[in-house]
Structure formats: C-alpha cells, structure tokens
C-alpha cells in the first residue's frame, strides 16, 4: 500500500455556505508524521473531521489504509485513533475510567481492556494520577490523557488535531517526545498545528494550508531551502514608512516586500547585506536577521503570519530568541 492516508479532492461546505476545505489532496506514507500547518480557520480541523468520519465530505473522498471514509465508515473507525482539538475526556470521571471505557468501546473484554488502559496510561506517563478525577489534572496531563484515550486500541493511524494547544514550552516538549515515540512504533500520524516550531520539529513532511487549500507541501528542510537565502526584517514606525522603504529598496535592486509595519528583505548572506543596507535604515525601529523557517515560508507564500492576530512583533521575536537559546 502506498498511502496510509490518502485524501482525494476533499471539499467541505458547511450549512450556511462556508467553504472550509476547498479541494485538499495528499498522501501520507505509512509510518510518517505528516503535518497540516496553517493559521486559525485554515480548515485543518474540518479536514481531520472528514478523515475521522465525523463529517461527511461535500465532495471528494479519503482512504485510510484503503478504506473509504465515505462508504466504509465503521471499518475506518476501527483503524484510526483521534485526538480532537477540543478536550473530550469526562472530567467528572477518573483518567482510568475514561481510558478503560474507551478500551471497552473498541471491543476489548474487561480483563484485556484493563491491560490496554494500563498500558496507554503508562505510555503517556499518567499511571500515578490515573485514579484522580480528570478535573484535578493540569493542562498537560489532560492533553496526554486525550492521547492515551486515542491510542488505547493501538490504532495504525493517529490523528492529532492541535495536540499541544495552549501548553507551556515544557509540556509541549514532553508531548513531542511521546509523539515521536509513537512514530517509532510504526504509527502513521497526521498532526495539525499552527505552531511552526511544532511542524518543523516533528514532521517528516508538512502541508501548508490556507483558506482550505494546500499551498505548499514537502519536508520542512526542503520547503525552507526553496525559500533561498536569508531574511532581514526591518520594523518601521508604521505601514506607510514600511511601504516607502520597500519601494526605495526595490528600486535600488533589493528584493524587498512590506508586510504591515515591517519590511522583509531577501538576501544571499544577511551579514554581508547588512553593511550595504545600513544607509537605508535611518528611522528603523528594529532590525533582525531571521533564520529561514516555516514561518518565513508561510509569510513568503501568503504575505501573512501564521499567528497574525494573536502575536505582536515582540512576542514573535521573543519566541525566536527562546528557540535559539534552547538549541
């Protein structure tokens, strides 16, 4: 079998006319981690829900290990594990009860279900809190419980919809390790995220999705390499100054574009280019050399940031900085 998961021209139009997914096709090879990276509202969750048989595609079809999500829904459900974006565990029950019920739902008899539940909880590092009510769990524990519930039946294909949403850096790293471990056991994983570090860290291949369409696909390294060169970001006092500077640079032969108050200049070697750029930088608030990454790829393709609405320039810079410190 060539694809563990194959989407063919998936379209979803919600009642009311929102075209959330607009012709998505891809092929996930067995045993790889494949990420859908895109901003909020890009159509990631809708795509995952169609693959998980929770939503019917308006057009197109998808195949999980050769089974159609439209015509063989129950067969598909046996093959997959799903961790939805929103928390789904029952917080009035214990972690153990949540996972145990899940095992029973997949048809394991009581004794075996207990073994499966124990294994899944141990795998996700939750065994010592298993008999506590879920309402007492931390955010990271709840996310891990979600995954424990999704892997208790040893699915061949696992869908993780924004599995680290809202977690702190440490819990996120922990979860990344666990996800990599799952891949090590041969599970095919479809991950969605709007954190570019997450996609970069985990994926064998990434599809960048925007407005319901895949606009680029490949290994993170490949996509970044395609960008070519390095990027210098120049923060100006406002959008009009940025426009002006971009125009000025472009007319003297630079490859420069304005995004809001920022001007992004693409150069072969940033350190060398800076000296030449210096005369133009009067009035600039900040100048920064960006290591080429998926964020830059997205910016290049769409002219927008992945998390435009929720992130200021400073927060972004801080994030880049902490990344560097960690390396």
């Amino acid at each position, binding site marked *: 079998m060539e694809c563990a998961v194959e989407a063919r021209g998936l379209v979803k139009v919600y009642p009311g006319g929102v075209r959330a997914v607009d012709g998505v096709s891809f092929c996930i090879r067995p045993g790889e981690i494949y990420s859908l990276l895109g901003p909020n509202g890009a159509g990631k969750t809708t795509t995952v829900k169609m693959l998980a048989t*929770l939503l019917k595609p308006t057009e197109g079809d998808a195949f999980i290990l050769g089974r159609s999500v439209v015509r063989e829904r129950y067969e598909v459900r046996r093959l997959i594990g799903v961790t939805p974006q929103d928390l789904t565990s029952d917080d009035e*029950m214990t972690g153990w009860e949540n996972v145990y*019920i899940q095992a029973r739902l997949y048809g394991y008899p009581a004794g075996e279900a207990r073994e499966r539940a124990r294994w899944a909880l141990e795998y996700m590092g939750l065994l010592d809190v298993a008999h506590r009510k879920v309402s007492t769990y931390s955010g990271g524990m709840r996310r891990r419980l979600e995954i424990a519930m999704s892997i208790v039946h040893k699915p061949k294909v696992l869908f993780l919809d924004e599995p680290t949403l809202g977690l702190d850096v440490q819990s996120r790293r922990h979860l990344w390790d666990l996800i990599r471990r799952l891949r090590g056991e041969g599970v095919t994983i479809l991950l969605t995220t709007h954190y570019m570090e997450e996609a970069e860290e985990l994926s064998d291949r990434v599809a960048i999705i925007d407005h319901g369409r895949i606009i680029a696909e490949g290994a993170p390294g490949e996509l970044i390499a395609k960008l070519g060169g390095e990027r210098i970001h120049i923060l100006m006092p406002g959008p009009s100054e940025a426009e002006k500077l971009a125009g000025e640079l472009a007319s003297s032969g630079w490859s420069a574009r304005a995004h809001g108050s920022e001007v992004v200049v693409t150069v072969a070697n940033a350190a060398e280019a800076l000296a030449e750029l210096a005369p133009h930088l009067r009035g600039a608030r900040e100048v920064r050399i960006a290591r080429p990454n998926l964020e830059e790829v997205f910016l290049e393709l769409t002219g927008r940031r992945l998390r435009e609405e929720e992130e200021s320039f400073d927060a972004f810079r801080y994030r880049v900085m902490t990344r560097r410190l960690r390396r």
Partner: protein
Amino acid sequence: MAGASLLLAWRELKKWVGRRGVFISSLVTPLLWIALFGKSFNLQALFTPPQGAQLPPGMVEAFRRAIEERIVSLFGTTDYFTFVSTGMLVVFAVFQGMFAGVSVIFDKRLGYLERLMASPVPRSSIYLSKVIATVARVTILDAILLGVALAMGLKISGAGPIDFLVAWVYVVLLAAALAAGYATMSFYAEHQEAVFAASNLINLPLMFSSSALFPVKQMPHWLQVVAKWNPVTHAANLVRHHLIGAPVSDYWLSVAYLATVTAVLLGAGLYLSVRWMENR
C-alpha cells in the same frame, strides 16, 4: 451493541451517583413529594360528620358507606395516599425523561460525544445508552419511593411479586418513551435551555392531564378526552391495577396503547438520532 449501550449507561449512572448533591436530592425528592402530596389531603376527613351534629347513628353509617363507595369508584381505593403514591411511581418516569436529554447536551458540549462518534461504537448504542440509563434511574427512584410509601401506610392488597414485576414493566415503557423523546430532541437542540423549556411545556401538563394524581372521572369532559389519549394515564391505571387492585376499563387496550406509544417514540428517536450522528 447491547454491550456498548450498557457500558455507556453504566457511565451515566456512575456520574449520577458520583454527584453527591444531585444524587441525594433526587432521592429526597420522591419522599418529599409523597409526604406532602399524599398526606396533606385526607379524603376520609372530608366526610366525617361535624362535631356536635346530632344525627341518628344508622344514618351516619349509611352516609359513610355511600360516600366511601363513591370514593372507591373514583379513586379505586378509599385512601388518597395510596392513590397518589402509586401514581407517583409513574410521575417519576415522566420527570426523569428530561435527564436523558440533558445528558446528550452535556456530552455534545463536553466533546465526549465526538470521541464516541470517532469510535466504532454503533450510533444506536450511543442513543440507547441514554434511554437505558434513564430507565435504570427511574427504577432505583421508584424502588425507594415504593419502600417509603409502604412504610408510610400504602395499602397493597394482595399484590404478588409478579404484580410488582409487571407494574415495573409499565413504568419502564413510559420512562423509555419520554427518555427517547428528550434524547432525540437534544441531539438537534443547541442549548440545554431548549430542553428545560420543552420539559416545562410537556411535563406538568402531561402529569395533570392524567390519572396519576387525580381520578379522570371527576375531570371536565374536555380534560377527560385528553387524559384518555395521555399515555401517563394508561401507565398509572395499569400500575394501580397491579399494585392496589384498582379496576381498569380495558386492560389490554391500555397495554397496547402504551406499548405502541413507546415503540413509536423509541423507533423514531433511533432513526432521527442516528441520522443526526451520521449526516454532519
């Protein structure tokens, strides 16, 4: 399918018992109801001759007999407490139905339903588990109600174990019918307020236009017509028939009608609920 339904119903019951406050209040409610409803209204007291009235003893006795006969013909018993506590067994089936709906809404909001739907569990089991859990809750509450009513003076004349079992079946039929209706409605409803509003609209009229609390024969004609079509009336009459030997006008007609209403609601609910889950 049966296994999954029972497993999910077990989850509901566990949560019910786990919510100490809710559980205890749902145990206390039936007791309060029969204590207040049943004991505050003493039929016999209405017909005791006033103090100091000078009537020949024979006449008082004849009068008492005549009135008692009239009461029995209306209520099927001389004791209102006996009448109302047996009716209450059925009222609880009506009032618990709404919780099947609330539980569906909660599972939707919690995201738990989504997880269930991503699993290979039959969609029918998800729906049926809500009905089964409600039936189980009603059974537990009715058992307690019955025990307390017996302690408080409910007169059961010659009802054997079979009578209790058969009466329980009729309570189950009614509880299942209401749970099916509420569960189905809740798959399509967005907010739990919709379920509460519907239950306010449905439960009280259903209770008062039936023979559960008051005899139908003393109702105005139009209400009698409503009561005749009200499945609660049939359930109440059948339960009373078995527990206190009250006469029913047409036993098998009542059984057939009650069973039909339940089958239709359960079946339509199954179809609509599964349709909601599969066509999104």
